[in-house]
């Protein structure tokens, strides 16, 4: 009895020691620019996360190998969120104390998690980046100082797709019929408001058809599409829904080269499983694929050459999502560089300074060329009232083996779409009792 209880006491003491050790934050070099990465590598969307965060981390490693951001080394910690909101918040809370000193922009790759973090990041002065997802009305930086839906949003993307179709049809879509096939979730519903505005402006008929999650059975939807006989189908799909749609379209005899997907419906993972059926299918994208871009080739040579690559499956190198991760990291690092140019070269930047960098980012083609990233992503120029900074996408087409670009950068109709964001942001500010910043006055001061 005594022996047993002694063992028990030892076991308790040992686990208590473990607990204490586990909950105290690990040490970090004092002057590193620190990125918290609430990422996901397992769970239903794990494959997407692996490619994106692989690219992100590879670029950070690359920056460190090249001497850091003007001498400032980059550090990071991963935390698995499994694309789950509660876990994402837990990760954020766990890493934020470490990040508070010199943070890099936070990328969650999850709309749900970024929604949950929007208010928290303001309170903690940590910049939050949402590239091509997340809270789209945060384009209005006067209400959302710390949130940056960089490069482009769902609404601007939908508008750009309409513009592409319009150009294809000699400048007018009047009298045409377009079906909007969407994943019935927050993600799928966001572009509706933009498409409705476009349909009023361009006088085409818009038919909305929702697909319930996960979308692995779409017979009814495509039956209806066959009856409607639309000219085009715009698809906001996600995961298994994409390949099912492409396959069903083939079965129902709808031409795939009249289908355009969003950028979540335009990666290799979406078309390869659909096989032959995907040939001719188009999608929007804000970054190009391929390992041929000089920067990607250089990462492969430098990082993977030194055996420091993050991807366990090197075949993902150069895929759409990998390149998206690299693009996201490029923008983050450039924002820190911008901040350094103002607040002190060769110094790590704090949260407010990085925020300033993100808000005054001016990534020109000339700068992209220096980075070896020409054509990888569009030019980005942000400001207080435009946290998006670009709104441009390219349209790509699957030729059965790879994505081929079929357009140059297309910008959505900013005059039509941005007022929608501002109206939403105003309503949000009222609900939450936020007093918006005066962007015009701030611009004048500069």
């Amino acid at each position: 009895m005594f022996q047993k209880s002694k063992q028990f006491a030892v076991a308790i003491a040992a686990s208590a020691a473990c607990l204490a050790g586990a909950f105290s934050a690990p040490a970090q070099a004092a002057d590193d620019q620190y990125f918290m990465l609430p990422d996901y590598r397992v769970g239903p969307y794990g494959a997407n996360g692996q490619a994106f965060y692989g690219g992100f981390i590879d670029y950070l490693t690359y920056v460190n190998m090249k001497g850091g951001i003007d001498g400032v080394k980059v550090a990071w910690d991963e935390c698995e969120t499994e694309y789950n909101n509660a876990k994402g918040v837990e990760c954020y809370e766990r890493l934020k104390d470490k990040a508070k000193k010199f943070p890099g922009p936070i990328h969650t790759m999850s709309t749900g998690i970024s929604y949950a973090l929007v208010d928290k990041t303001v309170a903690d002065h940590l910049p939050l980046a949402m590239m091509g997802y997340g809270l789209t009305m945060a384009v209005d930086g006067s209400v959302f100082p710390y949130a940056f839906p960089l490069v482009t949003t769902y609404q601007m993307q939908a508008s750009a797709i309409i513009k592409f179709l319009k150009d294809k049809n000699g400048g007018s879509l009047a009298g045409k019929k377009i079906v909007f096939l969407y994943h019935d979730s927050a993600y799928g519903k966001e572009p509706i408001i933009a498409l409705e505005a476009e349909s009023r402006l361009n006088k085409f008929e818009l038919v909305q058809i929702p697909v319930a999650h996960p979308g692995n059975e779409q017979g009814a939807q495509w039956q209806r599409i066959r009856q409607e006989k639309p000219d085009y189908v715009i698809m906001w799909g996600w995961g298994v829904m994409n390949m099912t749609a492409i396959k069903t379209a083939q079965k129902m005899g709808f031409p795939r080269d009249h289908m355009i997907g969003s950028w979540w419906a335009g990666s290799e993972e979406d078309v390869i499983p659909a096989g032959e059926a995907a040939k001719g299918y188009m999608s929007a994208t804000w970054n190009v694929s391929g390992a041929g871009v000089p920067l990607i080739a250089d990462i492969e040579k430098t990082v993977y050459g030194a055996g420091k690559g993050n991807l366990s499956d090197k075949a993902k190198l150069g895929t759409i999502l990998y390149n998206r991760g690299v693009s996201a990291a490029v923008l983050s690092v450039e924002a820190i560089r911008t901040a350094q140019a103002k607040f002190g070269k060769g110094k790590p930047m704090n949260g407010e300074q990085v925020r300033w960098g993100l808000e005054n980012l001016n990534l020109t083609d000339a700068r992209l060329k220096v980075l070896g990233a020409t054509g990888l992503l569009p030019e980005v120029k942000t400001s207080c009232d435009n946290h998006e900074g670009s709104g441009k996408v390219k349209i790509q087409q699957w030729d059965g083996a790879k994505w081929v670009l079929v357009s140059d950068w297309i910008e959505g109709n900013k005059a039509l779409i941005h007022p929608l964001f501002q109206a939403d942001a105003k309503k949000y500010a009222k609900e939450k009792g936020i007093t918006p910043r005066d962007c015009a006055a701030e611009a004048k001061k500069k």
Partner: protein
Amino acid sequence: MFYRETGQFKTTYAADQQIFPIRQDRIGMLLLLAVAFVGIPLFASEYWFTAILLPFLIFALAALGLNILTGYAGQLSLGSAAFMAVGAYAAYNFQVRIDGMPVLVSFLLAGLTAAAVGILFGLPSLRIKGFYLAVATLAAQFFIVWCLTKFPYLSNDSSSGVISLPGITILGFAFDTPRSTYLLVLTLVLLLALAAKNLVRSTTGRAWMAVRDMDVAAEVIGIRLMHTKLLAFAVSSFYCGVAGALYAFCYLGSVEPDGFSLDMSFKILFMIIVGGVGSILGSFLGAAFILLLPIFLDISLPAAASMLHLPFDNATVSHIQLMVFGALIMFFLVVEPHGLARLWQIAKEKLRLWPFPH
């Protein structure tokens, strides 16, 4: 030696019927409350408040709700997350649409709305039982989430269906720090838990248990089945609804219908299975186990791996975490099928005899 009721005589009915009849239990409970109300707010870090204590309290409340329905009244339900969603969206709508609505009142109304919806989906329980009822409540799970996605009115015409909750101000005091939010949630959860404890000890609770153990016999001795079952659904959904409102307002700050998925319902069900079906304490223990163990593994596994120089990457750690978590659930269920609450009870009985078991 210390845990013994010798010499504690009960001279009144009130003393005999109190929740903790043994003095040591009362002292223990007071100590626990002191730690929760004074100790933790003084010493815990922000991470503990926002990532561990808040979700623990809120899910414990939801588990408590389900425990009333499943553990006490014997009606299996898979719709807890949906009732939480009703609570969250109802509280949001009351708050946004009615100017000057006090937050606590909107939490209360949210609970009542959830109770009404719960009664509606509890109607099938009058005709079907067991697994069939579980399937019927599954309908609630899917219908409510679909409904919240489908009708933009319910999310105040938010273009994405995601709602973002306003801050909490009660009588001019803004609950905007993790510490104050924690104290608010703790108070609400304790009040509701106390109410639940008294409810299950009352006539109502005994009627629930009679229905659970054998509904025909219960009917024969004069318990109105319809009334009892629907009341269980209403009370259970009320608790889930309030938990949902707290989840949205105090924990995440922004929620979407898809967040209240079947996964979450299962999680709450596992909480009461692991914690103890038909036990108030079990709801708290189960919530702690299901929520905190993964976080603990998540933090300790990489540390352990690096200590032992194992080449684990992030993904491997997550997989191992799932395996260990699953194995532990099985272990506990095999060792003690009645849950952690029962383990606690056994420990207390052993403690009474210790150290002279014969």
